[in-house]
């Protein structure tokens, strides 16, 4: 078991009414799983992902996980720093951990090699296609060897070919032992995973 959520509630007060963003969420994730969270717009998918990633808090309930350091994030709009090169973007998370410079070099080189982007290491995000940018985003998420990857619509801005590539990559990572939770709209993407959690109005409707 990698994380456990028990009777979790998150709400906002608007005009005297309590609006539930997450309503009595209850589930467990085991190591090596590849979970897809699905549901219509506004059903609370991203909120749930943010809570799992500790990017956002909650009002009630129980959530057990180790530490934020063991999570990597992948976003729909990549969120790369425009002023940094591919190499520097991937390196960024290492700068805030205690790594020696030679160690950092080796880790980034590995990552570039693994994603076949060595030739692009000195380019800036704006010079890359969306798919390539997302590759960099994933490389950055993986550089600290996280136990869990949280991906919020990772292929939302990509065409179908790029989309397939990224999903294949996720599958591959999952096979190597990384636990993945993704938010997605696409049945096709969800099919890459091992389990689907369906949300509606902040409630789990099927698991």
């Amino acid at each position: 078991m990698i994380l456990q959520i028990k009777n979790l509630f998150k709400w906002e007060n608007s005009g005297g009414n309590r609006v539930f963003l997450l309503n009595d969420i209850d589930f467990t994730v085991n190591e090596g799983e590849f979970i897809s969270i699905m549901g219509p717009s506004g059903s609370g998918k991203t909120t749930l992902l943010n809570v799992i990633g500790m990017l956002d808090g909650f009002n009630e309930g129980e959530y057990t996980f180790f530490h934020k350091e063991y999570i990597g994030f992948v976003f729909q709009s990549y969120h790369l720093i425009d002023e940094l090169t591919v190499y520097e973007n991937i390196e960024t998370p290492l700068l805030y951990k205690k790594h020696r410079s030679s160690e950092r070099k080796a880790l980034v080189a590995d990552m570039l090699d693994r994603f076949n982007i060595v030739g692009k290491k000195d380019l800036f995000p704006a010079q890359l296609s969306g798919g390539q940018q997302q590759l960099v985003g994933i490389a950055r998420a993986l550089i600290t060897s996280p136990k869990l990857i949280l991906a919020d619509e990772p292929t939302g801005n990509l065409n179908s070919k790029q989309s397939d590539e990224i999903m294949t990559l996720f599958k591959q990572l999952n096979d190597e032992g990384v636990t993945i939770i993704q938010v997605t709209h696409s049945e096709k993407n969800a099919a890459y995973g091992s389990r689907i959690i369906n949300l509606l109005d902040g409630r789990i409707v099927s698991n």
Partner: protein
Amino acid sequence: MKSHIINTIIRNLVKKKFLSLTKILGLIIGYSIFMFLVVKIQHETNYDQFWNHSESVYRVALDLKYENGEQVKSAKNFHGASELLNLELPEILNHCNFNKDVVTIFSGSTQKIQDVDFVFSDPSFFDVFERKIIKSENTGVLKNIHGVVISQSFAHKLFGNENPLNKEITVNEGWKFVVDAVFEDIPDNSHLKIDVVATYKSLFYYMRNFDNTRQILIDNPNFTYKQPDPYTVRRWRTPVAYRPYCYIKLKEGTNINTVESKVAALLTKVPLPQNLKDSNMAFNFQPIKDIHLKSNLDHEISANGNTKQVLFLSIIIFVVLFVCAINFISLNTISNLELLKNYAIRLFSGATYTQIFQLMFVESFLINALSLLISLPIAYALITTQLPAHTIDLSILLYVVFVLILIAFSAALIPFLSVVKNRFTSGLKIVGQKINQNWRGQKLMVTAQFSITIILIVCTIGIYKQMQFMMQTDLGFNGKQTLFSFSPMTMNQHPDIPVKLSTFRNELLTLKGVNSFSTSSSIPGQTTPRLNNQVKAVHTAGPFPATFNEVSIDDAYLKTYNIKLIAGENLSFQNDWVSNDILINQTAAKDMGFLSANNAIGNRVTLGKHDCTIRGVIEDYHHTSLHNAIKPTIYAQNIRWDHSVGYYSFQLNSDNVTGTISQITQIWNRLYPKEEFIYNFSEASFASQYESDQKFNQILTYSACLALLVSCLGLLGLTLFNIKKRLKEISIRKVSGASVKQIIIMLNIDFIKWVLVAFVISIPISWYAINTWLEDFAYRTSIDWWIFGIAGFASILIALTTISWQSFKAATSNPVKALKEE
């Protein structure tokens, strides 16, 4: 720090070219002005601090309260003052007196230098004012009765690169001296400007033994010099014109209060003349380094600086720096707002807030350092052109670095606290969401910048108005087309003066171009060094309760300077240029107690040993600048006005001025062959009294313009940022039917209202500032409401121009584009 800080910073700078340029330009202006003005203030405040033991050198000034209540605070004192202190008090290391003279010096057959700063002093002069001295082995300094000691730069002026030692120089009418030694120049920032030093002993020797008719010195081996003795009455009765400046140097560790407390007792030991005995007499010990800024006594050696100007300069420094710093801070906040996304990414990549702050500080610091680097040569150029003789004290770098760190730190801290820190309260919500780029502080910044700018503009206009006022005020005389020269020095004390002068005048008056010619001891725009507080009505005991200026003139003076006679008649022509008739001005008539100008005519007053008759009363005119009130003045007809310089004035008519001048030169050269005819225009000479005001005005004007420029740059940066932020809003409004005009108004009003607030804030402050400055002028212009109006209107207009183009561009942009991007 290991992150890619430097790369990021450089890329940010390059990417946001306009914003970066604006930031850097503002800082360059700030740092340049800061360094220049700090050096200028250092120059003003470090006067006379270079002397060895400058803290123990004091000038002994004189405070006299006469029995009739009249008070004189003079920079000069009696010869006996420092001599008495030196003899009686063990606390005093040494002392000297000196009398200053302005002379013409000749060397060789042709070389001639006018206006030389020459002093007669005691042999101990260089013990009080220590200088490096170069001399031959076997000569003493100020020991030789024929010797003088001259400054290095003056030696260079006279003899070029030749060795000046033992060279001969001739002073005025023919006193020949030998250069015994050369002293290291007295730095520019000293109240003493001295190029030649000779001893009192030489003075008396030459006065006694110089034959003025033949213009040679008749050596007298039997000459004995009466050593100065403060216990004789002659050391205490010198008239003010001949009194020296007195200096003492204390032994180390002595407190001046000890000396001060003993003065009253000492003065009882000397035979003071009756008028001093009857009055309240005290010595005023002025630390030498305070003289330039703090001393404002009568008879100062030269015009001193003033504390107020230094204060104003300090305020200008602070204010300009403040404007530039605010500009940088607000632009930096904007760029940090645009970088919020990056900070968010760094934060979820594991950075802490402290690390983000470090990043912001390093960036801010590097931009400041770059700007400082660029401004160094600019400031250096300013300093070397404006203060050529000043040696730059490197301590200024310390101040600059301090200011740099302060600005860099606040420019990182303010955006950090106001827009970055706590921005991401609930976890890292920001990621994946639209970033709110509001920043409340910017309105405050705009208001502060513009308040200061408007204050500077008001002060500039006010001071400019005062300058205009001074230039345009009817001075009561007319110096148009009037030339003046010094009276020929070679003739001083010469018995032939009146004869030669008459010849000179008669020949001049045959020239078609010369309307009139006059000789006088002072002319408008020059000081009136002769003061007299013992003027009294004939056959009365007590003098009038006032100190009168005395000027010697001739019958043509009024015509030459076009001065109006309001009662009585002008002086009449005298063959020997001397009579017992006098003119007085209106102020003098009032001070003598006459009810009207007409009442004064025919009255007799005692001037020194002469009983004189008041022949006429002239309208008050401004003999000196409008800084000073018009003083009661007596115009005597007496060519023998001591040994001091006099003036020859020539009123020309307008045609062929150059031709006339060359004709005058010919006559002069024939009559006074040893001296060149050097002339100046009276009008220009009078105006030169305002040089320091003009310089100050210049500094203020430039500062105000630069502050305005920087404020506008800041405003432009803010406008660009805000418009970018509101592009979607603007598009929606346009799609909903707003016209271009409505949108421009909407965008402009947002800023203009803050400029208006700034205007309101600045009115009282600038009103106070300008009035404080004007207090220094006896005659001043009025500060009208329209000055504020113009300043406010101008800044609003400039602000509008700055932002309107951007507003226009935004208002006319294609709304579809902006909406699509969302």
